[in-house]
């Protein structure tokens, strides 16, 4: 068991924790944080598993960098949407959708 593998298992744990938070929590910001936790967990698995196998692996490091940028973009978009949603409706969670309030 290399330290890299330990990272990978930690990442797995983080991923599932994030998933739990994503489903169980209501507040949108918390959901977004949980999502980021999932993302970080995934990156840990990606790097940990690959480096356990290959030693230092610049490919996965680059992938993770790309992944982080994508995650930042997604988080930023989420924040912008949440803020505007809060601004317009005064709510910070997605209550069960009733479907027919929608539309013009």
């Amino acid at each position, binding site marked *: 068991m290399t330290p890299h*593998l330990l990272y*990978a*298992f930690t990442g*797995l*744990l983080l*991923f*599932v*924790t994030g*998933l*739990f938070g994503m*489903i*169980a929590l209501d507040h949108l910001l918390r959901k977004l944080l949980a999502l980021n936790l999932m993302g970080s967990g995934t990156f840990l*698995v990606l790097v940990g*598993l690959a480096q*356990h*196998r*290959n*030693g*230092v*692996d*610049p*490919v996965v*490091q*680059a*992938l993770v*960098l*790309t992944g*982080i*940028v*994508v995650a*930042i*973009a*997604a988080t*930023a*978009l989420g*924040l*912008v*949407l949440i*803020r*505007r949603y809060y*601004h*317009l409706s005064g709510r910070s969670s997605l209550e069960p959708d009733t479907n027919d309030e929608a*539309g*013009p």
Partner: protein
Amino acid sequence: MRRWATPSLLAVCFALVCVLGLGLWSIAFDPVGKSLPERVRDAMGSSGVDHPVTAVLLNFRSYDTLLEIGVLVIAAIAGISMARLPSLEDPAFRTHDALLGALQRWFVPLMWLVAGYLVWAGAKQPGGAFQAGAVLAATGVLMRLGGMPMDFLQPGRLLRVGLVLGFAVFLLVAFVTALVGDAFLAYPEGMAKSLILLIEVSLTLSIAMVLLSLFVAAPVTDATGNQEGGHR
């Protein structure tokens, strides 16, 4: 019903951890196939840079990076589309703090220097456009908190040019290399280093701009539209 929701979710998550852990374990001790880093090492000579991560990011897998910057630009577009118009920057949010002002005078030039170094260093050691862009954006955040007027953040043409500059340069390089060379993003012999540097520098500027505009786009427009078209 509700009472059982959390425990059962926990149970599901636990089961998931077990299954995934098992999978991870079996993978870790039974890998098949060859190792990719060796190929990276072999190809480093013709990559134009010395640092393998940068080589992967901007040469071997540069298409990923191109699309990734596209994703970033999309987030920025969505951000400014929701900002109050015409100015992103709200004077009411400015603070006037003497200490912050002094700090700025010291820090901002230093941070610019750091950002510049990070871009340059990316060729040989950890660093690169994204790190530099982040530092640059932090400078902007600091300036904004310190009450410095930043007119270029108005969502006018200047801001939009800034947002896509890096992406546009990258794309143009890709297109030109495809037309004169062999394939999309295939840098001609000997030009890899300078092209990568060009891309890195412009990406740094754009990444900083994107991050900054997302940070500054605080005030939200109240205007909403009819979701369907405008013909009625």
